[in-house]
């Protein structure tokens, strides 16, 4: 069974070679004539204003945190989904009900985040 993973490593090796080749090709083939104007940050031809390490809206961090929670939920669904037919044949509807309760509890959290305005953007 483990030998079915060999092709994946070969593909990853080729992907690395392609990535290196493409990224370095124009470094080797292209001209190198840097000057100050060319190397400055592009802001539509104006002089760059302020810092680039700006503060970012807290909303993005909130989205990232919610992502971790709900992505974990996805991971809990997968083993259940793969085994569902077998387990249903053996144990009947209780397999569905137990997952349903889990989802309801999780969606209470979703509703809380919703009502608190966690998904509002302005």
């Amino acid at each position: 069974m483990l030998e079915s993973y060999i092709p994946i490593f070969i593909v990853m090796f080729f992907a690395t070679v392609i990535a290196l080749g493409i990224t370095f090709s124009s470094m080797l083939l292209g001209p190198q004539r840097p000057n100050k104007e060319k190397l400055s940050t592009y802001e539509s031809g104006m002089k760059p204003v302020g810092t680039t390490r700006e503060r970012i809206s807290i909303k993005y961090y909130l989205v990232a945190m919610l992502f971790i929670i709900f992505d974990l939920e996805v991971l809990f669904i997968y083993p259940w989904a793969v085994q569902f037919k077998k387990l249903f044949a053996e144990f009947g509807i209780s397999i569905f009900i137990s997952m349903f309760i889990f989802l309801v509890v999780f969606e209470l959290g979703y509703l809380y985040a919703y009502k608190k305005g966690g998904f509002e953007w302005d």
Partner: protein
Amino acid sequence: MGIGEIILISLVKILLIISLLFLTVSYLTYFERKISAWVQNRIGPNRVGWKGLLQPFADVFKLMLKEDIVPEKADRIIHLLAPMIALFVAFSTFAVIPFGPEVHLFGYDIPLVVADVNMGVLFVLALTSLSVYGLTLAGWSSGSKYSLLGGIRSSAQMISYEISMGFSIGGVLLLSESLRPIAIVESQSGWMWNAIVQPIGFITFLVSAFAETNRLPFDLPEAEPELVGGFHTEYSSMKFAAFFLSEYANMIIASGLIVTLYLGGWQIPYIDLLGLPSGLVALLQVGAFIFKLVAILFFFLWVRWSLPRFRYDQLMNLGWKVMFPLSLINIIWVALLIMIFGL
């Protein structure tokens, strides 16, 4: 089969697929320009070669011979690393997508997929999560405001839609009972395509695939009117082309995934009733896979040149308030179908 034979067979398959992928990517850029021209009543590229067919190669060689500019404010190492991550992800994901049935050649049973692994779907999900890094690091390391905003937007957008994508796949797994892409294709025999059995899941997956590949109407990370080029504003020459290539390669992979998970993969309904020789059937089935793939790719291009861009709050609302509940409903729907009709 010994290790040497496995390596040899997979090398042949990988080289074949990589060259096909390169060819498809370059001609996808050509068809994108031709279709956009057709939609907007223009002619499109027609100078290089017959009807402009050599245009993609002209573009690649032009970009290769351009100066590679690294802005002085950029973080040099990460600025170099970001396009590599994007390319690496784009060129390794196709390994688990099956493009045909098992064939008998030279005394071997060869499945027409590069790597027939039992966790293929998880592999795809893991690599799509990695592709967020390419875009975000590119935006952060460039030292430009436009890039930073584009990178942050893209990371928030991609992780938001990854959730509804994951839940939609859950519905597929309920029916296939396996994470192996080949088993998923085989579970959709006849007309039992997942797109027909679970239309809600198909739609949520399709929309999430558009968002994951940063295609219009969800191309907020590189919205030209507000952000110039978005996360790749400060990239030039082949590093810029790296993002371009990976975007198109991701489109091909997303189409391949849609075909595998929802449109029955390589299968043609009821072809075994015709009694054709098995070699011909295999050939027709590979053809069917390519036909479905091209149809979805055309849909990608068609949508891009027909719809306007979403606003950022609309995008996030759609992801969290519409797609997420819909994909949950889809899982319940499939579970009910299994319990009531015993699918």
